[in-house]
């Protein structure tokens, strides 16, 4: 056989396996990084940080987490709000119980708590699938929030039932609490998003990601190849909940500052995060980020854009409009393009790559 040289082989696989194999993609990512890390902090004001960018990044982490479980491993979950709550309440107990503990460490430990809880609630996934699993995770969602609501120990017997972010410093920068500067909190969420997105992408393109997708696409065949369904699904639940847990901790301690369990309920968190991955693209890390961006920015766009062009709309109407747009888009993406924004982006790139010779 006319084999190509081994050396050439190897170097080409290495290049082919790179996270962004195409040079234009690398340039694009470089630009995104420069904008996110250098340009935005210079030009954004407090409103942009607080209303748009920080929630965008925090929800993007949660969406990546859910996408690992639902998009890659095929296990539908409506419990992301609850797993985020586990992260937030665990962080609250940790930082109030151990005031010297570095809050970043507390975030990560809380992620581990959330992972453990997620794995416990993931156990039924060995037996049940699809719709029934979704209902089981819904039960987890209600149960966990009910526990956080009822057991006063979790919110340190605060009469209002709220958990509040205390002021905590990291390397001399105040990252949580009411005094923490928006730009610092912006950087914290951005750094977490960057690390988590790369970690997720790396897992997804390795043998673990292939095992998840194999379970998703054809669990029988996966089992016969030697992939253990329980092990693989529980790992997906664990890692997914770790992401959600850390996102939940950031949600309270870096973004909102204080909240009660309602902040994590189905309509505030679980559904929006699910919509993010449906709109952004199931089984795509980039899609999760795009979906999170879209869903956090659209409401703000709808309340601000019409007045700018001279159309007065009421807040109520903007809210309704938002729901209609989400509904239509979800139906569109579920039926027409299940791969979401990510796929549209891929198609656009194909077109650009071929332009101006479309053959």
């Amino acid at each position, binding site marked *: *056989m006319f*084999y190509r040289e081994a050396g050439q*082989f*190897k170097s080409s*696989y*290495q290049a*082919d*396996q790179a*996270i962004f194999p195409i040079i234009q993609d690398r340039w694009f990512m470089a630009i995104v990084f420069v904008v996110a890390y250098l340009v935005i902090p210079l030009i954004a004001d407090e409103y942009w940080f607080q209303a748009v960018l920080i929630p965008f990044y925090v929800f993007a982490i949660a969406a990546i987490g859910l996408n690992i479980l639902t998009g890659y491993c095929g296990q539908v979950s409506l419990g992301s709000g609850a797993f985020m709550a586990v992260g937030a309440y665990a962080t609250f107990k940790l930082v109030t119980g151990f005031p010297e503990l570095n809050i970043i460490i507390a975030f990560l430990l809380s992620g581990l708590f959330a992972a453990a809880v997620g794995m416990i609630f993931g156990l039924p996934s060995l037996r049940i699938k699809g719709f029934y699993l979704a209902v089981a995770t819904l039960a987890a969602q209600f149960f966990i929030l009910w526990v956080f609501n009822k057991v006063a120990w979790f919110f340190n017997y605060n009469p209002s039932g709220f958990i509040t972010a205390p002021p905590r410093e990291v390397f001399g920068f105040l990252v949580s609490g009411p005094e923490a500067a928006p730009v610092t909190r912006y950087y914290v969420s951005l750094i977490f998003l960057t690390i988590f997105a790369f*970690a*997720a992408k*790396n*897992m997804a*393109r*390795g*043998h*673990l990601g*292939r*095992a998840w*997708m*194999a379970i*998703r*696409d*054809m669990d*029988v*065949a*996966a*089992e*016969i*190849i*030697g*992939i*253990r369904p329980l092990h693989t699904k529980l*790992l997906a639940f664990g*890692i997914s909940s770790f992401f959600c847990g850390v996102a939940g901790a950031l949600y309270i301690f870096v973004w909102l500052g204080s909240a009660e369990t309602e902040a994590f309920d189905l309509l505030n968190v679980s559904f929006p995060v699910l919509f993010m991955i449906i709109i952004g693209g199931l*089984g795509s890390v980039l899609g999760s980020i795009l979906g999170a961006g879209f869903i956090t920015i659209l409401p703000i766009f709808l309340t601000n854009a019409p007045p700018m062009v001279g159309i007065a709309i009421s807040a109520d109407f903007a809210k309704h409009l938002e729901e209609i747009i989400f509904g239509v888009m979800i139906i569109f993406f579920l039926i027409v393009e299940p791969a979401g924004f990510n796929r549209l982006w891929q198609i656009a790139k194909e077109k650009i790559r071929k332009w101006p010779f479309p053959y």
Partner: protein
Amino acid sequence: MTQERQFGNTILNVENVSLSFGGVKALDSVSFDVLEGEVRAIIGPNGAGKSSMLNCINGFYKPTECTIAFKGESHHQMETHQAASMGIARTFQNIALFKGMTTLDNVMTGRNLKMKKNFLWQSLYFGPAVKEELEHREAAERVIDFLEIESIRKTVVGRLPYGLQKRVELARALAAEPEMLLLDEPMAGMNHEEKEDMCRYILDVNEQFSTTIVLIEHDMSVVMDISDRVVVLDYGEKIADGTPDEVRANQRVVDAYLGVKHD
């Protein structure tokens, strides 16, 4: 040609495999053996229990009673995971590919069991994890070259035509570097040319990697051409076992299966 072929020891010995679904006896005390390096065919009419037999061998069905000895290790029942790690791979009668994944990812998944780096290494994609991924990529590419599916490497398999999907499924099974390959009707639904290609690949695998092959096939001319020995099942019972010529001459087989004698 088949007469000159030399085989090693018994690699697989199944004894008294019985399996029933509700009232239906899919397999009734079936015993047979497979020698290292041979191409062993299982034939029989529809519903004879051929696929069920393969499912018992790799642990997907749990027979009520049986002994399955693979490479001298005797098991009452196999576990799928155990069968896979001992070197048994298979393809399915109805293609069971991972439809949303590319050809390359499907083939790489065939090697998953050999990849050990845990999720922490993978999340970093650094050092040993990269090395492992690249080693396995090379092995996967060798299989892809061997089956001549380079051009569809990055194509999502759900979009491929049937014949190519069958080939990708074989590639996925081969990627595991199995010692024994179970093929459930690898040529079903193919046209003549595709069948010939598939036959050639199967024989090449058998020859170049000395992989033992257990094959279910309905096309008699194929079976007679490529197999060394044939087991015939009918209504879950073994009714004949021997070389293609012996089986062809067996009256019970003629009655039960072939109907009219071929040629």
